[in-house]
Each structure stands twice: as C-alpha cells, then as structure tokens.
C-alpha cells in the first residue's frame, strides 16, 4: 500500500511537536482571520507570509503553517456570516442565506455547531480525496478547453438568476452590473484598455475582494450609520452552545453530497471555493424542494454551503500541487509561497518531494481535527470577537476592511474604489436588488469572456466549436435546464433572499 507508506512518512513529519504547534497556531490565527469581515483566506495568508520568513521556517513547516491558516480561515468565515450577516470571506456568502435567519430565531449556537461539523466533514473528505485522487484528478484539467470553460461559467450564470432573488429581472440587472464591472481593464485578447478612463489603476480591472468588502462590509457600516440609535441587527445573542445531534444526523447526506460537489468545483482551475459553496447550496435546495424551506434558517441550508466551501478549499489544492495552476485566489498565494521556497509544483512534485506533499496532507488531517475542537466547544472565544457593541465593532470592521484591502494591493485607489462599492451596495439594497449576482458577475465575467474569445480564435469564429465535446454539451444542457426550470417551478419554489433588515 503506497498510500499508507506515504501517509506514515507524512505523519512522522507532521507529528513532531514543533510542526504540531505550528498547525495549532495556524488554525487559531486562521479562524480569527476568517471570522473578521473582509479578511479572507487569501489576504490572511498573504499577510502572514512574511512571518514564515521572519521565523526562518523550512519548506514543510512554512507550508503547514500557511495551509492551517487557509483551512482555519475557511472555517472562520462562517462565524460572521451567521452572527452578523456579513460573510467573513467570499465563499461564506451562501452561509448567510440560512445561517443568519437561524441565528435571528435564537439558535445562533446550533447554527455555529452545525456549520462547524459540516466544515469538518467537507474538509476531511476533501483532504482524503486529495490524498487518493490527486495524481489521477490532475488529468481532469486537460479535459477543459475554452468551450468547456465557457459552458461551465454559463451554467453558473444561468442558475444564478434563479437563486439570488425573488425577482428574476432584478437578479438579471445585478448580473449585468457585475458583468459590466468585469469588462473594466486591459482586454487580454487585444491588449487594449477598456472602460479605464486612462486610469492606470484600472488596467487590471476591479479586484473582486475590493468589490466584496465594499458591497458587504462598507455597505453594512452605511446601514448602521443610517439606523443609528435604533435597534441594530448586529449582536445576535449566543446562549449556551449545545450540540444539536438530531439535526447533524439529519443532514449527513447533505454534507456528503455537498462535499463531493464542492471538491469537484475546487479542482477546476479558477472556479474555487465560491463556486463550490454556491453549487452545493443550489444542489441541496433543488433536492429539498419547497418543503426544504431553504432561506428560512434550516440546518440543511447551513450544512450544504459550509461542507461545499471547505471541500472546495481542499479540492483547490489538487491543481495547485499537481499542475501549478491555482484553483482559487488563496492557492495562488500559496503557490507564490511554494515557489519562494524553491519548490516547483507540477506533475513531478509527488515523486520528487514526497516529504513536502505527504507532510502537508498529514498536517491538513491534523489541522482539521484541531479546527473541529476549536470551532465547536471553543466557538465562544471567537464569537467574543464579534460580540462587542456595534459602536465599537463597526468602526473596527471598517478599519480592518481598509487594512485588509490595503495589505492586498498597497494602493489607496483600491480604498476609494471600496467606498464607491459600499455606496453601490447601499443603493442596491435600498432598491431591493440583490448584491450576490454583482459579485459573481465580477468574479466570473472576465474568465467567461476570455474563454469565449479563445474559443473563437481557435475555431476562426465558428460558433459550433462551443458544442464540440460531450463535456461542453452536457454543461450546456444543464445550463439551459437550470435557466428554464425555475420559471416553471416558480409557483412551488420560494427563493431565498439575503436578509436585509
């Protein structure tokens, strides 16, 4: 058994007291970073990279610390989603849909425990999947060419219209705003700047983290300013935390399915954890149907996106380690760390540097158990961070948002842009236009356009090229169904909406 031999090699490295300590520290820092609105896994890891050099860590230790932060941030993201209705990071967006209603119903503790367990299941299964399938799964990337990617993004947009709003037209407007923003910047195919107004800062387009923090965190602050003196929605009470066994057992299949969906989404380069949690949530919502009550604060609606996004985090490591193609923003940052440490990720990494890969996998398994302990029995410690009065918390949120964004790009322009997005988010929410499609438009719009343009270059403008493989055709069929089906099912389906009170 190759895997067992390799795994024991991995554990022999990961179980040294020093490495273990790094994993625990990484988990703790990661959870806090994830819980703080605006600071997500990618800027969290980016902020902490200098630390690994200051500490003089070797390659394996540095990787263990950073991936523990990565996994920790994926866990932590749910805390502020549930308690504040602000996603702690971008993949935790879908946890707000059911997590916040449940917390408002006085069951914040249950929501945190269910989501913690779901995160554990998702991350554990993904790590096992990474271990078993990585060398094999690496080949999936070779099956995705421009037309397949285009169909994949189309699928995401088609199902998007149905999920984000009760009003399809408003969701469509929001998607268009997002796609429009995604067009800003230098056009990759022609090299010409578009919609930049000659401003160099806009040549690379709008960073989606800037948009996310603006639309969520900053807009939230504006809402607080407006409602100053009135009862704020922030500060959901958290009483005793007990384990709702019944609901955890009830959601076991949801967690397994969502983990599988998330893992696959994570493997696709560029798709990442957001798509994982989105697809997991949508799959479960359609399986549950009307009776499921998704969007009203049900356990399944919390378990699905959390299992999905944590599984995607593990899945995203697969193309990063095996192909050197990052599957998400955070793995791009991890890739940078690897290269700095003189490790070239690629098809040979598993044979050339087994101690790095298997040490990493073993510490991911360990980190996962540590995180379960931190995030279920000890969740109150992290909640304390968020339980301070709004008058202190919101300026804090603002400050951390600013620091987080500035640490990302080092550019004051992005800070101004973030405020503009905050105003946009405020206006959109006043008009009852959902902000989720705006984000997904910014996130996927550029990739989708690039995929289409590449397909057209390769095929000399022949549109049929888009349907040239079974994978592409399958995705098109799913996309068309995903778009049409909600129209017929509208009478039966109540769509969830981000709670905006």
């Amino acid at each position, binding site marked *: 058994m190759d895997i067992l031999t390799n795994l024991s090699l991995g554990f022999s490295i990961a179980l040294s007291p020093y490495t273990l300590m790094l994993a625990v520290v990484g988990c703790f820092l990661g959870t806090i970073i994830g819980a703080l609105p605006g600071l997500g896994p990618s800027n969290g890891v980016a902020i902490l990279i200098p630390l690994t050099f200051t500490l003089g860590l070797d390659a394996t230790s540095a990787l263990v610390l950073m991936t523990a932060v990565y996994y920790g941030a994926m866990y932590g993201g749910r805390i502020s989603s549930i308690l504040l209705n602000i996603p702690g990071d971008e993949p935790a967006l879908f946890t707000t849909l059911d997590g916040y209603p449940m917390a408002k119903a006085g069951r914040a503790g249950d929501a945190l425990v269910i989501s913690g367990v779901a995160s554990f299941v998702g991350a554990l299964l993904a790590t096992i999947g990474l271990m078993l399938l990585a060398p094999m799964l690496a080949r999936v990337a070779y099956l995705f060419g*421009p037309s397949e990617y285009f169909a994949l993004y189309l699928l995401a947009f088609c199902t998007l219209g149905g999920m984000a709003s009760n009003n399809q037209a408003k969701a469509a407007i929001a998607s268009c705003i997002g796609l429009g923003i995604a067009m800003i910047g230098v056009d990759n195919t022609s090299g010409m700047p578009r919609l930049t107004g000659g401003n160099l800062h806009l040549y*690379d387009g709008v960073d989606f983290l800037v948009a996310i923090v603006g639309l969520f965190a900053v807009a939230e602050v504006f809402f607080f300013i407006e409602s100053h003196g009135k009862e704020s929605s922030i500060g959901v009470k958290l009483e005793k935390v007990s384990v709702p066994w019944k609901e955890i057992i009830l959601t076991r299949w949801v967690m397994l399915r969502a983990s599988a969906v998330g893992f696959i989404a994570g493997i696709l*380069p*560029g798709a990442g954890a957001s798509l994982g949690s989105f697809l997991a949530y949508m799959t479960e919502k359609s399986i549950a149907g009307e009776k499921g009550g998704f969007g009203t604060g049900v356990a399944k609606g919390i378990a699905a996106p959390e299992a999905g996004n944590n599984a995607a985090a593990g899945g995203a490591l697969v193309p990063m380690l095996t192909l050197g193609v*990052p599957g998400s923003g955070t793995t791009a940052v991890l890739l*940078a760390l690897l290269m700095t440490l003189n490790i070239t990720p*690629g098809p*040979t990494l598993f044979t050339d540097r087994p101690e790095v890969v298997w040490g990493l996998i073993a510490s991911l398994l360990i980190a996962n158990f540590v995180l379960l302990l931190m995030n279920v029995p000890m969740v109150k410690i992290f909640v304390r961070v968020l339980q301070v009065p709004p008058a202190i918390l919101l300026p*804090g949120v603002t400050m951390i948002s600013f620091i987080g964004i500035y640490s990302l790009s080092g550019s004051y322009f992005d800070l101004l842009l973030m405020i503009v997005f905050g105003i946009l988010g405020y206006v959109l929410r006043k008009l009852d236009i959902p902000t989720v499609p705006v984000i997904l438009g910014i996130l996927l719009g550029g990739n989708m356009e690039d995929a289409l343009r590449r397909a057209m270059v*390769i095929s000399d403008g022949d549109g049929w090229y888009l349907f040239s493989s079974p994978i592409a055709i399958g995705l098109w069929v799913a996309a068309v169904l995903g778009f049409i089906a909600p129209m017929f099912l509208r009478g039966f389906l109540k769509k969830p909406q981000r709670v905006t009170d």
Partner: protein
Amino acid sequence: MKARIFKLFLVSALLGLGVSIKAHAAECIAPANPGGGWDFTCRQIGKIMYDIGAVDKPVQVTNMAGAGGGLAYNHVVAERNDDADLIVAASSATSTRLAQNAYAGMTADRVRFVGAIGADPGVIVVAKNSPFNSLGDLIGAIKAKPGSVTFAGGSATGGFDHMKPLMLLQRAGFTDIRKVKYISLDGGADAITQTIGGFTQAMTGDMSEVVGFLKAGEIRVLAVLTEKRIPGFESIPTAKEQGFDVVAVNWRGLYVPKGVSDDTFNIWAGRLQKVADSAEWKAAMAANGLAPFTKVGGDFQSYIDEVVAEVRKLSKELGVIQ
C-alpha cells in the same frame, strides 16, 4: 470588558503587522500578484540577500499588480524617485512593454536598471503525442496553412510570449504575421495545460514554466531560444542550430529609482552581484530552469537600451505598434 481587551489586542496586533512592514528594511516591489516571475525575483533575491548578509534586515516584498508592471513603474517614477531603500523586480516583459509604449508613455530612462542575474530561456513546446517532431515541422505547417496551428502563451497579445513564434516565423520568411493564431492565458501553466489537452497545437513560454511537465514526460520541447544548449537540458536543441536564428530569453533583474545617488546604485549593484555569486542563487536557478545570465551595473543599462531599440523595431515590423 474581557472582550474589549481582546479586541484591542487583536486590532493592535494587526496594526503591528502593518507597521512592521513600513519599518526601515529595504522594500522590493513585485509589480504583479504573488506567484509570477516578478514575485519570484523579489522573494528569492530578497531572501538570499538577507541570508548571505548583504542586507541586515529581511527585504519586505510588496506586490503592486497593475497594467503589466506599468502601475509600479509610474509609482516609482512619480512618488518614490529618490527612495534609496527601494528595488523593483524587472524582466524582459518590462523592457518589451517600455519599447511598445505600454507604460502610459513612460520611457526606459526614467529609472536605473541595476542588473540581471539569470534568464529564463524561451521555449516552443508541443504535447508528447504531437505530430510535430522539430521546429522545422511546426514552422512548415504554419507556412503551408497558417490557420492550422494555434499557439498558447502566458502573456497578452503582443507580449513577449507572442513575439517569440512571430520572430521565428519572420526568420523563416513568413510575413503574413497577422494570420498566426495566438491565445493568451493566465500564465504559462494554463497555456501548457491547454496544449497537453489538445486545444492548442503549441505553447510558447519560458523554460521555468515547462520544467515540471517536461520531467513528467507530458510534453516535448521543440526548441530553446538561446545561443547554446542549456546545462542540464542538453538534449533540447536550440532554434539557432535548427536554422532559425532567434535568441529570446526572459532575464530576471532589478531596477531602482532614477533619483538615487551613484553610491546607492553601486551598493545595490554590489548586493546583486553577491546574490549572483552565491550558492543559494545557483541552486534556485537550477530548481527553476533559469540559465546563467549575469549583467550587473553600467553594462546592463546599455544592454537594456539595445534591447528596447530592437524590440521597438521588431514591434513596428510585426505591426504590434505604429
């Protein structure tokens, strides 16, 4: 109360991180997001400078992505023109874009180029099961039917990766450059994945981008665009020996602001030379497919001037700029 103290602690810890970045250590700006060549240059050179004692504090790396390096270039020229503690990662992409006026009209003489200490050789790559067995096969196929081959590369249209096949074709007497199909992807690894997947017929990029795939036996390198074969990869023929006289390497180096004193310039040049001579850098080069290419100090500035002039002439011939 406890919560408040905890919160304060946390916030000050975060602020502390921010402040420590601004301390007096030297700063290296990587004009791109983490993960690319410029980021590698900054982090690797910065780390080795500290490890071998050329600088007494760790070099802080700042990622300033934007406009293909243009944002950082403008930032240095406009706001940091006399900052003696600042170095910026540069490569052939920097000089290519300067030559093509892609930095909002900035010219190469607005900063001082310190030196290059390694080069990533250009390569033309096909999948292992490709019908093309030599560079001649590939060029011949394009000459016969320009639409039959699509190149994938990691740089934008008109960028360095795009220029490489165009230069080869030009040497082979093919002038209808605009008919050559090229798609730009987000980096060399993506480009190679598309080529192995059979969506494009060839990949144009740098050696470092293909080493992992080469060792795994997924690809064949048809030609390396250097004067001589690369140590460690002696089985790969150069384009030159196949009759296409093109040398295109992606050098890795640094520039500093224009306004620094000659002393400062020489200090940085000395530090860079020390890195070039160190065993650590040699190991880093070997691990990342870089070939030796050391030009430090005044030599390098004249090299840049030549390169910029050459690329500008070529870009005009190729129709990339007016």
